[in-house]
């Protein structure tokens, strides 16, 4: 399988044009303070009143034009790091690469008399820590994909998800991580809808899977786990359920299993509604959202109640592990998945993953991660974890959250909102944040 690579990401909204990254690069690469020689270049817009900054930096293309036009074979993509390397001993200074690249990723260093380009400083880019505003990040999430990509995919190759849905990613990653010695419960919802329970007498997974009722997922899984234990076989008990099944009609069996400390990992894929059956509201649907049962018309303006905070309720069961996660933050998700698996060996582990729904939330299928990221950046959802030993703490704190409108306007289900409704949601976001913050202060330890 192909490799994924680490990359330098730029967030123009955080940049104030100070140029510290360029100074750091010039120092690292040329030993001078001549920022013209920096391989990362920040440009303020012409209109100085507008605080917006532009970037020229090699993107280490998968399909690098600079390489294809180099007549000397002086440029090459490194198969391990993905970096496009420049070999000074082969370069003939013809500048053709600067004509091939559409991104100004390779340019003439007039002082040196040769072209120069970013090489990510061998995986330790000098520019990134130099940025005082966190506008540059070195994203190493690729390491996860490379590691996990080598493990066996335990889900069927083809599945019937909606285009752009991140649930497939969750299922494949989670199953790879738990491994083949697993029994999987998938109650009615998008996961079986995509094919976990299979077609024509064969399952959609390469591990035993069953399709409990919405009401009894945790109870059935607990029984199966206990039976395996009785016969002396160590298996991972795993449920992947939707928010409807977990927070509404399945709640009593979930709560019971948590309270009894059944040894399992219960993962909730929260797309804030019954999306598989036609986008009905659930108790996890947020205030104001359109669903087919909270329609938008002359009198009604979407859901009129706030969402139930299921993960906080699970904290109050004092489970062995409770955490919230987002597919926009895979490194964070993976750490939590590991901890949850470990905790499920001795007790009940609960992982709540926010899962934007392209179809039900009404946004373009290429924007799932963007929507998931905006949810976190506005504090609409918060990423934290809880153990009885260490209490609750944030794993990704958002100190200067974006206005919640940045999240709301990213999708169609909030398009109709009146200003009062937006105000209500913003107030709830602040209130939720304070609430969780207070829980971190008075972390229950014991």
């Amino acid at each position, binding site marked *: 399988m192909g490799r994924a690579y680490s990359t330098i990401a730029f967030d123009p909204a955080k940049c104030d044009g100070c140029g510290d990254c360029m100074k750091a690069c010039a120092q690292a690469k040329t030993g001078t303070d001549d920022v013209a020689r920096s391989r990362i*270049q920040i440009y303020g817009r*012409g209109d100085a009143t507008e605080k917006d900054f532009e970037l020229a930096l090699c993107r280490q293309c998968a399909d690098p034009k600079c390489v*294809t036009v180099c007549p000397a074979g002086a440029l090459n993509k490194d198969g391990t790091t993905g970096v496009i390397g420049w070999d000074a001993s*082969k370069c003939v200074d013809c*500048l053709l690469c600067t004509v091939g690249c559409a991104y100004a990723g390779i340019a003439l260093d007039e002082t040196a008399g040769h072209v120069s380009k970013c090489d990510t400083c061998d995986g330790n880019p000098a520019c990134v820590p130099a940025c005082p505003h966190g506008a540059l990040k070195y994203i190493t999430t690729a390491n996860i994909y490379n590691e996990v990509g080598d493990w066996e995919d335990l889900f069927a190759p083809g599945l019937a998800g909606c285009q752009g849905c991140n649930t497939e990613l969750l299922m494949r990653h989670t199953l790879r991580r738990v491994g083949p010695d697993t029994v999987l419960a998938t109650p009615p919802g998008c996961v079986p809808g995509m094919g976990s329970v299979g077609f024509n007498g064969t399952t959609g997974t390469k591990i035993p899977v069953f399709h409990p009722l919405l009401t009894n997922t945790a109870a059935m899984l607990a029984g199966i786990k206990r039976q395996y234990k009785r016969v002396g076989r160590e298996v991972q008990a795993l449920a992947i359920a939707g928010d409807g099944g977990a927070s509404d009609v399945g709640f009593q069996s979930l709560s019971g299993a948590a309270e009894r400390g059944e040894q399992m990992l219960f993962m909730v894929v929260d797309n804030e509604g019954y999306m598989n059956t036609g986008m009905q509201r659930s108790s996890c649907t947020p205030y104001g959202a359109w669903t087919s049962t909270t329609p938008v018309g002359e009198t009604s303006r979407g859901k009129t109640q706030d969402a139930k905070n299921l993960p906080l309720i699970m904290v109050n069961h004092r489970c062995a592990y409770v955490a919230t996660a987002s597919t926009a933050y895979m490194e964070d998700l993976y750490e939590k998945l590991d901890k949850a698996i470990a905790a499920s060996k001795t007790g009940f582990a609960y992982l709540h993953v926010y899962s934007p729904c392209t179809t039900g939330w009404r946004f373009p299928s290429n924007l799932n991660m963007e929507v998931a990221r905006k949810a976190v950046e506005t504090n609409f959802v918060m990423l934290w974890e809880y153990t009885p030993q260490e209490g609750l703490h944030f794993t990704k704190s958002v100190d200067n959250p974006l206005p919640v409108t940045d999240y709301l306007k990213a999708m169609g289900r909030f398009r109709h909102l009146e200003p009062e409704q937006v105000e209500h949601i913003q107030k709830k976001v602040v209130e939720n944040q304070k609430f969780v913050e207070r829980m971190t202060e008075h972390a229950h330890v014991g």
Partner: protein
Amino acid sequence: MDRATEHTKYLIAGSSHAALEAINAIRMHDPEGSLTVVTRDSHLPYSPTVLPYVVSGKSAPARIFLRDEDFFARNKVSYRPESALKALHADENTAELADGSTIVYEKLLLATGASPAIPPIPGIDTVSYHVLRTLDDALKLRGAIAASKQAVVLGAGLVGMHAAENLVKAGASVTIVEMSDQLTSGYFDKVAADMIEQAFRDAGAKIMTGSRVVRLEPTAAGAKLTLENGTTLAADLLLVATGVKPEMAYLNGSGVEHAQGILVDDRMQTTVTNVWAAGDCAQARGFFTGTQVMNAILPDATLQGRVAGMAMAGDPGIQEYAGGVPLNTYHFFGRHAISVGSSKVPEGGEVVTRFDEKTGHYLKAIFGADGCLSGIFGVNEFFDGGVMAQLILRRIDLTPLRDRFVANPLAVGREIMSQTWR
């Protein structure tokens, strides 16, 4: 099937830029289909563009190859050097090779590039002269340069100028003879050409523009050239660099239509089914003219090779060729010149120039009546040629930014890039 007749799904004639990009494109979509590359050359693939540096000694001949044997093995490509395409029988999907064998193909790409055009000067066949297109040419020329005291370069295009610089640096006395009245015409305007000319004169080269050679005769040391005005020149080394002509002699009788080059559509298909052409041998849409033109430059060869490969493999991701934009870079005596786009001023268009004689920075930008960039040329003024080409191809109206753009095309070009296609 006759045992001597091989069959291949994809046949590519030529092994340079256009061919290599086509291989990539085909393998991206069809990892398995049999693929055969036949080429006239006896080496692994290399670029003609690197040859001036082989001549100067900057590039070691053993290190210029763009692919190794392993690449062909990994990509399941049968690579056959020294097997030029001799005749094409398109009605039978058959290619006849110089070694007498034939290959039946399903899809054929003609990527045979170009060869030096030899001007019909009386006596030219009686003297020995050099050209520069293949590695063998370069190695021969490199040997001759070391011994040359008095060299003449015919033609002041980029190939001739490069070689002339090498000769000057090797210590020969060099004369450049050019028919048109400026150097590097077609690439750079008069101001830029004058700067280039000055650099060559400062280095001791003789430049005779507006001069036509009417006769060539062999001498003991080499050759004697007679110019139209009666002047004679003696040369112990004569390099003919008066342009190129597409390599397509094998087309005779094949039914594939050709004019200056092999005529192709926006998917690089020729007028015959199952036959495509790309690179220096092809005559494809010109971005500025809309009609089919020759644009024999390396970046275009790669682009056309990719389009052809995708078309041959039936890749649905294909993007049709938008038309060739001239792009040239030129390094001379430690200075550089870049030209992107057309030097013709379109109707209602406008030319803006800026020239600092002290620093030798020269910039010329040409805008169309619609405010879009149509050409930009610089000497000692670095800008990102690839960004400029995108500004042209995307037809971005620069009217509101024009003054800033002309003052600093590097920064403003990048700013637009970052806002528009980053």
